[in-house]
Structures are given as structure tokens and as C-alpha cells.
């Protein structure tokens, strides 16, 4: 079906914009010193429709650099929403930026849709502007994201000299075009000629059939080390990128120390501290690894995660980089000197779409029902949601996590250490190491916190049915595995032999010691304990040594067995290695990973390992699915 097209004489632009301004705010490209930015348009004369690119992309009107998620007063009371969203028009958006918005839609409108992004999207009219001249650094034709647009707009303008051809992309667009004269055959020919001429002038191009395959084959390549020497790690490339979505969530309080707000602000995987968790552990400290994460994310991971282009070729990252680091040049350099081809399997996330009825950002109030000290710094808290209906409906798989909030302090992801068979409450076993967990440590029975969840994929308790189970835990890693023990205990006849290997640093660091006897009494179940060291004066009648030293004592064999493990990454690494050496296959091994899971809902990006979102694709993974990720795990 032919697209409906009209013409807008340039002389009439002023009247057209004035009409738009009658009932909404209009934003468009305006001059700023020698460059252009998207800004408020008072009248058509402000509009610089001859602009090449803008400093920040129009993304800023949807995914705001800083967006208040809510305001609060006290640890759990929400007192207000963020900024109200009015009706707005974006005038003169280039095809690359429109395609970038379509990509961002996949991030923000699917799997826990974000209410703020959605409200802005629904309240915005987009009047696109096709490109009739290439910009200096753009390479949009590599991804068919320019120079002409075919979707994502209400109206699309093309400059054909003294007038614009106006194509209609939506019902709302059609209304706005009311009163314009229909485009003639000659106008449409002129439009196509202008766009074809522009297309031919775009010489910068990423020309590779399967960028994912090429990059995966060249994870190790001298180019990355070269870039590491050059890159300033300033993060500008991601700040100006129209598809970058990562953000951080922090609480800010006023001087009452009680009232404040929880905003999200743009963050960047190029920053050293992006992947930092409590105790100052940084998961991606190496600059070369961060550069790889960005380039891989743009050219392949985004596609794997959201089935949409992660790079639209707008060229902003090139134009603004002090060192002119350029994806086109990077790909060309790798293509010119590639590693020998090898077969690669690109990671695909589990199919899982969740659409909750309420805002995914607002926690539910939960009351502390009981507190039990486990070790010097680790405590088990029993919670129940304040609203009995919420508690009744609350269920979860073993191994998943909640986000626990204390307004003013922050939010932290904590695995659930109870089994959902218990209906009237749930447990979190928490070590006091960071802002939130230290604040939790000061709370008492009856105090209230905020909880969102459950989030993530847990242990494969269904797949384990009919099989033997080997459970290997280290230190606090027993907390997310305790639900598995409880689950099997309650359904003992559905599982085969069950062995639990648990190691801790010292006997005093062991969790759930008062439950060990009960676990030993589960039929066909053996519990093996080990510690790294026994301090003087402490009695210990079990093994001494790292947890893998128990492998020689256990009866578990690879046949018909599923192994689940959680603990420090270094421990899991040696557990996995030890079991592979004993004939286990990566298909039988499940691991629980830890990263900075700031939002829990596949939005903030902090927890990514290569293409993996630990918060939603995990935290429990089949080892076979993640062992060959470009960003190595163990």
C-alpha cells in the first residue's frame, strides 16, 4: 500500500510549527555555538533542519539523564511520583535516532515495562527528517537505519528544495497533516532521488555479514590492546549513544535524613566503577574488557538480547571521542587481520516476558518477623509482607532473589534463603558488608523494609526430578541453596541420592548449623563439611581443606546426576573444574553467579556478563550455556 504523502512548502513551516505549539511543547534541533542540540523550539526560525547531528540524541526526552522513580519520607513511605509527563513533539528527528528509539523500546517496554519511559513515549509525537546529505561520521546504511526511515514516526519529512514531502506514519500523523496538499508524482520522484543520492554518498560502512560471529572469533585480537592504550575511559561514547540504556539507581535525602528521592541516572559500562559491588569488588576492572563490552554490545549483544540493532550508525561516538575511536575502523582492522575462523555459538537468553500490573520500581512493605544471628556478620531475617494479600500471592522458585530497600540508604539484591513451601513468610540470609546490609543489621523485629521481587531464574528443581543431586556450597553461598535442600526434603521420593558438600573458612563461619542434624536425617542424604582453617580452641570433627577436597569422599558420580553450586567465584571455578575432570558434563552443572544486580528487571545493565543479564537470565545458569561467553567467567 502506498504511503500517504503530502507536501509542506518551506514558507509554510512557521505556521505548521505554530499549530503544533498550540497544545504541546515542541523540541527540535537548534544551534549551540558551533554544534547542534535538541532543545525547545519557540518558533520555526529556531529550527535548524540543516543540522548534521546533535550532541546528545533525542533519547534524552524518553530515557531522561536523571529520572525520579519516586519520592519518599522515612524508610518505607512513598510520598510522590516523579515529574509529570506532558504532551510533546520532537521535530526533525533523523532516521538513525528514530531507529535507536525502536531499539530502546525493546529494552524499556518489554519484560517489566518501565512506566516512565512508556508515559514519555506515549505522550510524544515524532516528526522525522530524512537525511539528504550524509553526516561526517555516520554509517547508518550499514544497518539500514538511514538515511531514510520506514517506521517509528508520525510524520516523516524529506527536503526536496523549496518544500518538504511529508509522509504519514500513524493516525496521529495523519491528523497533523490535515490541510496539507497531496504530494504529486514529481514530488515523490524528487524525494526518492534525494534519498538515493544521499545513500550513495555514504561511504563509511561496517560491511560484515555476521558481526557477532566475527567479533566472537576475535575476542582476543591485538586491536583491543591497542585501543586500551588509546581509550581515555571518559565514557563520552556511551553518554552520547542513542541506544545506550544503562543507568544507576541511588537514594538522595535532604537534611532531615529521612525525606528524599530515588532517581536513576545514566551510567556507563566504560566506567571502572560500573560493575562495582559491596566491599569494592569490581567485576570488569580492565579497560580493554570494558571497550570490548561496549563494542560487542553495540554490534552483537544488543541484538542477541533484544532482537534489535544496538548500533544505528549515528556516528556520535566517533565525533565526540578525543581519540577518534571508531567502530567502523575497529571492524575494518579486525577484518583485515582476523583470527582463523572457528565455529561460535551465540548466547540466546531464555524466553521470559513478565508484565506486572504495578510499577516494577515500587517495593512492597515487608515486616521483619524474626531475626536469627547465623555468624558474627551474617543474619537470617524472616519477613512477611505487610499486606496479607500480597503475602498470600507471593511465591518463588528456589534460588531467586528480591531487591530489599531502605529508602534513603538504597536497595540491594539478596537471594531468598527459604523455600516457598512455607506460605506465611520468607527468609533472607544477609551478610552485613555494604550500605543497605549494614543498615539492615541495625533493624529489629517489627521494623519494616521495602521488597521487590522475586526476580530471576532459580535452580532446576523440575529437571532434577528422578535424578541424583549433588549440592556444593561455599560460605554464604549456602543461603540460595538452602531452598533446594528444603524443597527436596519435602518431596524426597521424587529425587535420587542427595549429597551436600559445604565448606566455610572456619567452623564459626558456617551458616544454618542448627539445621545440619535435620538435613542428615533426610533419607538417602549425606552432608559433608569442611573448613579452610580451624582457629585455636575451636572444636572440629570434620574435614579440613577447600571444598573440592571432599570430592574424594563423596559417592556422587556423573551418571544421572545434576550438580548445583554457589559460593565465591574462585571456589565455583575449582568445583566445576574438579567435576569436569571426574566426568561430569557442562550440561549437568548449574552455577549461581553474582554481579551488580541494581534493578533486577533487565533495565539498568549493571549485571551484564557479555550478552547475559545475570538478574533475569540467571542468577542460576547451566554451565554449558555460559562457559563459552566472550567475557570469560570461569
Amino acid at each position, binding site marked *: 500500500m502506498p504511503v500517504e504523502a503530502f507536501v509542506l512548502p518551506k514558507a509554510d513551516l512557521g505556521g505548521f510549527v505554530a499549530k503544533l505549539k498550540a497544545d504541546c511543547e515542541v523540541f527540535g534541533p537548534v544551534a549551540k555555538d558551533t554544534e547542534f542540540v535538541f532543545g525547545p523550539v519557540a518558533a520555526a526560525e529556531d529550527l535548524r533542519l540543516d543540522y548534521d547531528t546533535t550532541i546528545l540524541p533525542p533519547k534524552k526526552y524518553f530515557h531522561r539523564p536523571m529520572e525520579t522513580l519516586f519520592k519518599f519520607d522515612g524508610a518505607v513511605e512513598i510520598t510522590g511520583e516523579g515529574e509529570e509527563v506532558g504532551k510533546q513533539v520532537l521535530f526533525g528527528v533523523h532516521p538513525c535516532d528514530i531507529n535507536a528509539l525502536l531499539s530502546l523500546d525493546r529494552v524499556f517496554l518489554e519484560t517489566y515495562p518501565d512506566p516512565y519511559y512508556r508515559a514519555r513515549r506515549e505522550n510524544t509525537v515524532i516528526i522525522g527528517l530524512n537525511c539528504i546529505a550524509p553526516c561526517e561520521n555516520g554509517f547508518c546504511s550499514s544497518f539500514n537505519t538511514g538515511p531514510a526511515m520506514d517506521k517509528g514516526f508520525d510524520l516523516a519529512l524529506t527536503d526536496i528544495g523549496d518544500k518538504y514531502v511529508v509522509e504519514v506514519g500513524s493516525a496521529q500523523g495523519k491528523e497533523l497533516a490535515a490541510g496539507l496538499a497531496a504530494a504529486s508524482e514529481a514530488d515523490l520522484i524528487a524525494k526518492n532521488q534525494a534519498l538515493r543520492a544521499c545513500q550513495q554518498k555514504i561511504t563509511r560502512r561496517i560491511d560484515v555479514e555476521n558481526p557477532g560471529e566475527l567479533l566472537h572469533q576475535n575476542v582476543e585480537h591485538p586491536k583491543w590492546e591497542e585501543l586500551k592504550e588509546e581509550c581515555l575511559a*571518559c*565514557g563520552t561514547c556511551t553518554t552520547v549513544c542513542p541506544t545506550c540504556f544503562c543507568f544507576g539507581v541511588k537514594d538522595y535525602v535532604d537534611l532531615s535524613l529521612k525525606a528524599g528521592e530515588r532517581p536513576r541516572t545514566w551510567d556507563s559500562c566504560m566506567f571502572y566503577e560500573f560493575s562495582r559491588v559491596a566491599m569494592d569488588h569490581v567485576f570488569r576492572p580492565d579497560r580493554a574488557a570494558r571497550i570490548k563490552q561496549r563494542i560487542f554490545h553495540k554490534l552483537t549483544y544488543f541484538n542477541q538480547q533484544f532482537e534489535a540493532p544496538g548500533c544505528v550508525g549515528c556516528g556520535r561516538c566517533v565525533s565526540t571521542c578525543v581519540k577518534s575511536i571508531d567502530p567502523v575502523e575497529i571492524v575494518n582492522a579486525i577484518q583485515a587481520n582476523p583470527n582463523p575462523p572457528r565455529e561460535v555459538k551465540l548466547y540466546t537468553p531464555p524466553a521470559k516476558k513478565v508484565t506486572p500490573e504495578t510499577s516494577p520500581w515500587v517495593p512492597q512493605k515487608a515486616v521483619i518477623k524474626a531475626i536469627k544471628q547465623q555468624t558474627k556478620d551474617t543474619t537470617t531475617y524472616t519477613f512477611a509482607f505487610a499486606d496479607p494479600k500480597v503475602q498470600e500471592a507471593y511465591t518463588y522458585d528456589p534460588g531467586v532473589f528480591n531487591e530489599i530497600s531502605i529508602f534513603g540508604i538504597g536497595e540491594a539484591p539478596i537471594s531468598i534463603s527459604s523455600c516457598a513451601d512455607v506460605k506465611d513468610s520468607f527468609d533472607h540470609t544477609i551478610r552485613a558488608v555494604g550500605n543497605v546490609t549494614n543498615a539492615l543489621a541495625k533493624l529489629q523485629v517489627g521494623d519494616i523494609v521495602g521488597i521487590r521481587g522475586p526476580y530471576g531464574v532459580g535452580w532446576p528443581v523440575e529437571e532434577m526430578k528422578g535424578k541424583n543431586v549433588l549440592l556444593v556450597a561455599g560460605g554464604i553461598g549456602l543461603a540460595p541453596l538452602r531452598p533446594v535442600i528444603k524443597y527436596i526434603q519435602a518431596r524426597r521420593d521424587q529425587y535420587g541420592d542427595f549429597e551436600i558438600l559445604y565448606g566455610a573458612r572456619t567452623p564459626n563461619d558456617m551458616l544454618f548449623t542448627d539445621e545440619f542434624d535435620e538435613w542428615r536425617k533426610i533419607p538417602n542424604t549425606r552432608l559433608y563439611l569442611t573448613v579452610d582453617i580451624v582457629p585455636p580452641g575451636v572444636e572440629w570433627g570434620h574435614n579440613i581443606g577447600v571444598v573440592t577436597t571432599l570430592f574424594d569422599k563423596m559417592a556422587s558420580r556423573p551418571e544421572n546426576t545434576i550438580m548445583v553450586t554457589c559460593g565465591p567465584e574462585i571456589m565455583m571455578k575449582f568445583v566445576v573444574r574438579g567435576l569436569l575432570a571426574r566426568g561430569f558434563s557442562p550440561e549437568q552443572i548449574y552455577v549461581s553467579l553474582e554481579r551488580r544486580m541494581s534493578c533486577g528487571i533487565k533495565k539498568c545493565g549493571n549485571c551484564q556478563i557479555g550478552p547475559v543479564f545475570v538478574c533475569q537470565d540467571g542468577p542460576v545458569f547451566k554451565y554449558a550455556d555460559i562457559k563459552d561467553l566472550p567475557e570469560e567467567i570461569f
Partner: protein
Amino acid sequence: MAKPKIAVFKFSSCAGCQLSILNIEDHLLDVAGAVDIAYCVMAKRENREGPYDIGFVEGAVTSPKELLELKKIREECKVLVALGTCACFGGLPSIKNFAGPQREMEERVYTELWDLKSIPAHGIDYYVKVDAYLRGCAIDVGELVQLVKSALLGVNPHFRPHSVCNECKLKENVCLLVNKGKPCMGSVTAAGCDALCPSLGRPCEGCRGPANDANAASLARTFSVDLGLSRDDVRRKFLKYAGNTPEFKKGAEAV
């Protein structure tokens, strides 16, 4: 909870950071209400002895006398904060560390040398443990207020250790380096100032010291090769405020 006792001390510095504390009119009364300013010679006639809950130290340590005082202050303060770039990294006083032999330099400045007891200028964490840093020449008062709030709440403050470029881009400033060819240090300097200088059209001088994972050597090459700065100019850029830091030292030595 009793109001925390606060003390403000001064070593070798211009007193600009202390002045910034007094300049937070919008917040001063509220802050003063939340804390007990027990010792601050610049602001009060009557000052009380320690111990203190939070001690702010301004200035670099440049003499043995200051060093002895600093050690006493450390013992008296539960939380010790380096107030401003001089206390964090040595700041402007530390330029002398890189200006040749100490005695020669002293001769250029002073006529009476017999009573000078000067040591190389360092930030206070060169000598004692420091719990928090307020960078900047002068400090950012927003960060100061946030630090006080965080200390009262018992949490780590959310400071931004990434580059100034991030804040500069969010303000959509035209890039002084890329678009205007000016030797701006923003890309390797820690944020938190809201890109104050670049927003006023002046290149970042690096007063807040190195950003996390700053690649100063690469920026020094750009200054030298692309902007044509002399070797001495590049050195001066990186040694002006935080030449004591290994990150900026690399920049100074790169070309």
C-alpha cells in the same frame, strides 16, 4: 543521637575550601543545626578541644610541624576527611615537588633561609589513614553537604569518580578539546564539579585529580601531537594539582 562534633583544621593552603564551607548559605544553618561545629578557627572565636566525630583537614602537609599536628588530629578524629585537593593530593603546593632541588627553589622565593623547615608537599593520606576525600580547588559544596549527610546516615557517599566529560556532555557543552582544540583535562579528571570550568568555556585544569582508571598518558599524547603543546606545557598540565598521584605522573612523563 547526640549531634556529631565537627572540627576543621588548616595546613598549607589558601583557605578557599574552608571559605566554601562558610559559603554554603543555603545549607549552612541546616547543617549547623545537624552538627556541632566544635573547632573551626576561621569561623569561631571559641574553639573546643577534641576528640571529634568528624575532622576536616584542609591543605597539604609541607613542614614537620604540620606533620606532628596531623598525627594528633588523626588520633582525635573518628572520621578524618581530606578537604580539598591540597589535602587530597598535595594540590598547588605540590608544584614545588617537581620544580627542581628544594634548596634552589627556596632560594628563588625566600631571602632568609635559615629558619625554613620545609618538606615535599603531600596530601594527608601520605602520612595518615583518611576516611573520605572531598576533591576540588575549591571543594564542591554539594559534595560537602552530601558527605555530612552520608556520615550522619552511616553510609558511603555517592561520589562520582568517573570523568568530568560525563557531566560536561550531560550539559551538552560543545567539546573544548574536540571542537575547539583546547587542552582540556576533563577526560582524565574526576567529576563532581558539574563540569564547572568547561561550562564557562574554560578548559578543565584537572583540579579534582585523576578519575577512576584515568589514562593520562594517552591524553598527554593528544596534547602533544594533536594540539602541539610543548613537553614542558604537558608536564605542567599534569603536575599542577595532582602530580603526586601515579595516574597524573604518568601523564607528565608520557611525552
